[in-house]
């Protein structure tokens, strides 16, 4: 059963709804449900996760049932159904990246940030998780940071340390 976190309802902004209109225009009349995945990405870029109230508003916007949005949001791994850190780090943990040390990077992040996979640091800045193949196998280990999906390749524990420090200084 989907556990719904206690949430403060959000109201989608006029700017976001204008972006929705542009996306919706890409599909033939009557087939606007196609916009669902892109719209959820836009919601996540705005809130850094996908709150239930936003999903309900997406459903109303596309004139579909809320369950149609929930079933999509829970199927795809990119949509965060609970709040993440401001910087949600995703480390590839599939075969080719593991051949060149991805597991060490995940262990290092756990030690460095002092939280387990999926948890958020006390300052709200970071969360991390292992993900399946990011399609950059020749440059592994790799990680990406949502919602911009900035990409970092050929990671070492030292380069991860520097990345964390840079992000802390930026905030």
């Amino acid at each position, binding site marked *: 059963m989907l556990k719904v976190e206690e949430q403060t309802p959000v109201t989608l902004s006029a700017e976001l709804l204008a972006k929705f209109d542009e996306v919706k225009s890409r599909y*033939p009349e009557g087939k606007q*449900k*196609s916009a669902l*995945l892109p719209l959820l990405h836009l919601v996540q870029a705005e809130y850094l996760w996908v709150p239930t109230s936003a999903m309900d508003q997406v459903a109303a916007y596309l004139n579909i049932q809320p369950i*149609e949005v929930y079933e999509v949001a829970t199927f795809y791994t*990119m949509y965060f159904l609970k709040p993440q850190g401001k910087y949600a780090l995703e480390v590839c943990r599939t*075969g080719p990246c593991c*051949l060149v040390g991805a597991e060490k990077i995940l262990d290092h992040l756990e030690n460095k940030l002092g939280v387990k996979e999926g948890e958020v640091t006390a300052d709200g800045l970071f969360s991390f998780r292992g993900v399946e193949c990011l399609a950059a196998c020749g440059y592994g280990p790799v990680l990406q940071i949502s919602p911009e999906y900035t990409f970092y390749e050929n990671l070492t524990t030292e380069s991860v340390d520097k990345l964390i420090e840079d992000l802390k200084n930026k905030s």
Partner: protein
Amino acid sequence: MSRKLLLEHINVPGINTLEVYRQKGGYRAVEKALKTLTPEEIVEEVKKSGLRGRGGAGFPTGMKWSFLAKPEGVARYLVCNADESEPGTFKDRYLMTYIPHALIEGMIVSSFALGAKVSYIYVRGEMMPQIRILERAIAEAKAAGWLGKNILGTGYDLELYVQPGGGAYICGEETALLESLEGKRGNPRIKPPFPAIAGLYGCPTVVNNVESIAAVVPIINDGGEEYAKIGIGRSTGTKLISASGNLVKPGVYEIELGLPVEEFIYSDEYCGGIANGKRLKATVAGGSSVPVLPANLTLKLANGEPRLMSYESLSEGGFATGTMLGSGGFIAFDEDQCIVRNTWNFSRFYHHESCGQCSPCREGTGWMEKILHKIEHGHGSMEDVDLLWDVQRKIEGNTICPLGDAAAWPVASAIRHFRDEFEWHIKEPVKSQTQNYGIANYAVPIEKAPVVEEK
């Protein structure tokens, strides 16, 4: 140096821009196709080229196109499959990042050939930077009149959109991709009907991989017959190979099909050999879903002849002694790598990515992952190896889409070729946690073992 068709200008500064791409001959194929060829003639050129689908299946592209139903008054669609998520494969990401206009040009020519007025490039959602690059390039192309209404005054209209996925490997399967593009969960459809009859929104649709669509550009520029001269036998043209794992120079390489595997691994033009002076233990030649092969069978056929990078040579001997070219995701394992651990890793991937629609795949992938985890962590029994073999047999061929096969083949091939290593993990649970089984039993040709100089 081998001939390059897709990556010829990859190192030219600014090749990602329309201006530089045009300077290097870009969009000639659109001009030629729209002004001098009929859609049927384009399909004929692609047939003559012998181009086979570069996403993994290797089905002849021209034949796929000719199956497209053309009822009057019904829209037709071209959908580019850029949901690249196969472990070991990263060529499409590379192509879209550095030469986005090669894909857009291919989309215009292919859409014209198929009579599509609206086309979509379905890019895996994680590739947001590539999505932005493609959107920028599409805007450039549209502003210059290569897309939109009445392209080049020919009366042909085409709108091209990028669709982001949501992070699901299964959406690389063409019918799951179409479901996803319709805003639904990526559950594969039962075929028939094939997308050529009922695809996107129930309309006739062709789904092609990024590399296949980009390859249409040189085919139209030079002619299908010229393209067919490159390569070997029914493996015509060039192929992008994504090389990863324990190689000196991993990366994306364009090869002429027919290149000896040995040359690809050891020559300086390509991968430059195995990293850190180690020896090659095994390879996965075409992405994680194809069978793993020990080094000796990677380099040589069962009859001792050199194995080549081609659809036929890699699959020579069936799965007993061969594998597949697949998507061209070439992963090399050095002597220190543990086959059991890697097989467990791949099984975890397929369990995670199973859409859950078919019981054998939904239950079987998780079962395999658990057994492999048990063996890898020193708690296995000899019966587990037989059970694992039995489970994979019951998944293969018993699912709607090929994800079940993709999950079964790595396990089957690992047991087939490396059963000793599984048994060693079970017999020596303590030792196997800290040591590697090595490659002594796998008959790596001694001449392939690099000499490490004494310091």
